[in-house]
């Protein structure tokens, strides 16, 4: 009774809401699910903070969300590459027009400062230290202050992007005393421990690890097209386009130097239901990751289709089930293959994702036609085959389940599946898998855990099966960290224990290969091997679910994060 009342009430309101008037101004309003929490250049909180940072700060290179190509941003052009035995040199020149807000030019010194910041002791920069570990040194050209060379250890083709993919911060603002300018980049990396004892670095750290740097929007000024107007913690962030932005004067190579909206407001609405209400009342112009049911209903309803366009672009977020190859139960690949035959991918996509997901045989997106192994048949759901495979692996079916003798001890095939608590998609998949396994008498226990607990168990290799999302990218195929056996021991990123000497060689070759055809052949081999080994059972690539107001012209949606290109939007009044 209460339920019906509540439902009919809410339906009434939703109907009435669709008649209400939109927000009148020219600001583009975007819904964020989470507060940026911190705007500190090193320890910023989350993906939302990064999205906002991309409007305020700039890196040397960027990826054009329209066609996923690497484009120069602060740099005048793509880097010139030179290689010798163990090092690679990437030479950049900064655009001559580039200026900070105080009018001073952006120079190689700022780039060097930003790199030093990522590696200085006593700062919250651990994840950047890991990510930019490959940058060995930076050499500034003495004759031209805007030209410099970044020296990287080893060479992989993705370094053409990664060597220029960090924010360039104004040195005059974050290091007014010039502490970092006095020490060279290579010295900071070599003398990390002893520098952390010096008083100058302690003072610098105290200056930087300060709430005003993390929260004071008045002091956060970058070379990007937008400046902070206000940040009401937990409610809204407002940014205005700079009246005079240096890039307005640039004449050449302007493809990525666009900033159309005069004002951008990020509305922070953590609750999905409240956000949908706000969207329906046209208080926000853009909402992503809409709940599936809402997305489908709104798409059909003319009351909403007259105001909104709906998009479901592909994304590179890959959902997979991992198996612990170091676990005695799952050590041989035949057992793993058997379990892979218990996953019914088409059913999962239909029931959990409403058809809005792309099935895949490997970790390459089917959209990447030249690299994706299209002729490799997926395993498919086949419990009988699974049984045959289990018998082949030495398991014997008994009345209570599957058993086999190993090292004088009877092993029973009982598994535990870890997934993140609160993720309803993972929960539903886990239940489906549990049912399928139960049908052939494999007991699977489901365990919903908090994400850091999962990380810890995966790190210690103390698990059987897990569900996870892999954020992949079409720009990099350096899979050594997550698939090479040298990273398989505790603490390394190869958590499933995947790999044979053969696949190791394959991975090393892929990381080095630049020619598309050869790379494609190698990647296809890898996809075959990965299916054979079955440490990973790939389920699907997710699709984003976006609603964007029809007031906005020149909409660009993308498969890369954040899923749309705000800078190209123009809003009609």
């Amino acid at each position, binding site marked *: 009774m209460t339920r019906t009342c509540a439902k009919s009430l809410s339906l009434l309101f939703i109907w009435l809401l669709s008649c209400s008037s939109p927000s009148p101004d020219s600001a583009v309003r975007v819904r964020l699910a989470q507060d940026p929490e911190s705007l500190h250049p090193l320890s910023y909180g989350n993906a939302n903070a990064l999205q906002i940072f991309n409007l305020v700060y700039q890196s040397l290179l960027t990826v054009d969300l329209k066609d996923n190509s690497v484009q120069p941003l602060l740099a005048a052009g793509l880097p010139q590459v030179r290689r010798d035995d163990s090092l690679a040199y990437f030479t950049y020149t900064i655009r001559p027009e580039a200026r900070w807000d105080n009018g001073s030019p952006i120079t190689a010194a700022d780039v060097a400062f930003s790199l030093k910041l990522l590696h200085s002791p006593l700062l919250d920069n*651990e994840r950047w230290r890991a990510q930019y570990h490959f940058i060995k040194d930076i050499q500034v050209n003495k004759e031209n202050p805007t030209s410099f060379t970044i020296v990287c250890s080893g060479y992989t083709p993705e370094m053409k992007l990664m060597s220029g993919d960090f924010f360039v911060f104004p040195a005059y603002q974050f290091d007014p005393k010039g502490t970092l300018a006095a020490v060279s980049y290579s010295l900071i990396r070599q003398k990390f421990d002893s520098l952390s004892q010096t008083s100058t670095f302690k003072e610098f750290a105290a200056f930087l690890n300060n709430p005003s740097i993390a929260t004071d929007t008045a002091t956060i000024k970058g070379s990007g097209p937008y400046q902070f107007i206000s940040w009401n913690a937990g*409610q809204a962030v407002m940014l205005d386009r700079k009246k005079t932005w240096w890039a307005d004067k640039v004449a050449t190579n302007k493809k990525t130097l666009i900033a159309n909206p005069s004002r951008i407001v990020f509305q922070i609405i953590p609750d999905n239901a409240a956000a949908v209400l706000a969207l329906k009342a046209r208080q926000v112009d853009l909402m992503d990751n809409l709940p599936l049911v809402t997305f489908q209903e709104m798409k059909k309803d003319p009351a909403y289709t007259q105001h909104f366009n709906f998009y479901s672009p592909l994304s590179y977020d890959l959902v997979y089930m991992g198996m612990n190859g170091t676990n005695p139960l799952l050590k041989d690949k035949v057992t793993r293959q058997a379990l892979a035959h218990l996953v019914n991918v088409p059913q999962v996509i239909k029931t959990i994702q409403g058809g809005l997901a792309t099935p895949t045989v490997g970790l390459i997106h089917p959209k990447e036609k030249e690299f994706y192994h299209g002729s490799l048949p997926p395993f498919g759901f086949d419990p009988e085959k699974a049984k045959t495979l289990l018998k082949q692996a030495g398991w014997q079916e008994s009345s209570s389940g599957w058993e086999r003798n190993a090292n004088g001890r009877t092993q029973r095939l009982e598994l535990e599946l870890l997934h993140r608590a609160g993720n309803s998609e993972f929960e539903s998949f886990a239940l489906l898998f549990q049912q399928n396994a139960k049908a052939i008498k494999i007991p699977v226990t489901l365990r919903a855990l908090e994400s850091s607990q999962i990380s810890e168990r995966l790190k210690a290799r103390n698990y059987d099966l897990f569900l996870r999302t892999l954020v992949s990218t079409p720009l990099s195929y350096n899979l050594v960290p997550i698939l090479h056996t040298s990273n398989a021991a505790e603490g390394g990123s190869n958590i499933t224990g995947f790999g044979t000497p053969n696949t190791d060689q394959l991975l090393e070759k892929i990381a080095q290969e630049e020619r598309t055809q050869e790379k494609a052949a190698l990647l296809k081999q890898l996809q075959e091997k990965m299916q054979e080994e079955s440490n990973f059972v790939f389920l699907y690539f997710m699709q984003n679910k976006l609603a964007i107001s029809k007031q906005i012209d020149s909409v660009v949606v993308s498969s890369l994060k954040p899923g749309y290109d705000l800078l190209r939007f123009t809003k009609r009044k």
Partner: protein
Amino acid sequence: MTLPQVSLRVLKFFFTLWFTVSCVFLVSRLLPSVNNPRGLADADSTVYGTSNQNTLQKITSDYLTRTGYNRPLFYFSFQLKGLETAENIKPMAEATRWLSAAVLRHGVVPSQAFYKEWQNWKKTAPPEKVNQLQEHLQRWAGAELNEEISSLKKMISRFLQTTSSDENSLSKTWGKLISQNAPLSYHLPLLRWHGKDNVYHAWLSGLLQGDLGTSTVDYKPVYQKIGSALHVSVGLGLLGLLPALLASYLLGFAFTLHPTSVYTSVLRHFLYFLDSVPGFMITLVVFGIYFLAGGSLLVPFSSGEPDLLQTMGTPPVLLGGLCIAFFIIPHLTLQFYHSLQTQSRSLYTRTAMAKGLSYRRSLRVHALPNALVPILTLLSEVVIGLVSGVLIVEITFSLQGIGSLLVKSILSNDYPVVVGITLFLLVFRLAVTTFTDFLYLVLDPRNQSNT
């Protein structure tokens, strides 16, 4: 109350406080994510381009040194004697686990000999053999059942015989190792004293000096974060509580005065209905009506910290207050009504009316004070609940109250804030209950005559 009684009570209060907060702190330190740098091990997103294992280990250990978390957690800890002996060998990171197992099972001398031999062998042996042996040894170290241990022992022996055929020294030292047994005393737990240089001591002495630490997310002092969240929670609570109190008082009184009226019956049924509607439904309906009435999401942007009145004037807080009033009115009204009704049926009310007072006046003068006493307990619970945050309201209207701050801090592993909020809520709860007890004492003359 006498002085010893008071001091005993104060002592109890501080003991409870210390014990609970220490437990929260120690438990928070035992969570796995605390010992990992932010963003380095996100469970649901593995990004390409992360570094190799050795770099990650080095960075994590630098992080622990920087934050001081590499120190022991408490003043003392227990450790098996054998494990301590194994630690004294100071093995390489990859050998730590199996070497500890070896020492614990077979004694320190042969283990050390095998470890030395293994180090030599590792320099020349092919890498895949090293990896295989490493894997066998790790499994042997991790095995728990006796038969599994012995079968793995045999397997390693066989592996070593086939691998190092020309120089059998590794195989020999292994044979020697497994033929011996460790002394039983290795399994005795030893108390290790760490002294003042531990994480708990540093935290407690900070706390005693009034330093709750700083947030790991934006470096703000914890008290400042709690302060601004409290601001919102108090504003929200006042806006909800005051109208609710007034409404409950008037409604409860009216119901008792006119028990047979149609309005009473309709209103009471409506209150029962309101009580059964889930909170999120109420908030969403209020939010929807607000949009319908042409309300806008855009809150006037403020500079600096707003004062309490300013906070209470913003639409989200006003709406939230309204929702909270809807949450508590049914419960409060019905309880008050029930309590007043019971009093009105008692003999003293009848006496008062017999002496010539009107029903209304007898209720107000004689029944009301008695009816209010049980409501006090209810009210103290409501106040405590409001300050700890009404999460549904805070999330729906994007308000940064205590509730959402707590949730946010837990999700972003900001443990200083979590511990700080726990401490604050504890003190607040104890203060409110003590105050309520005191009020009982003042309001109810029977209590005074007892003591």
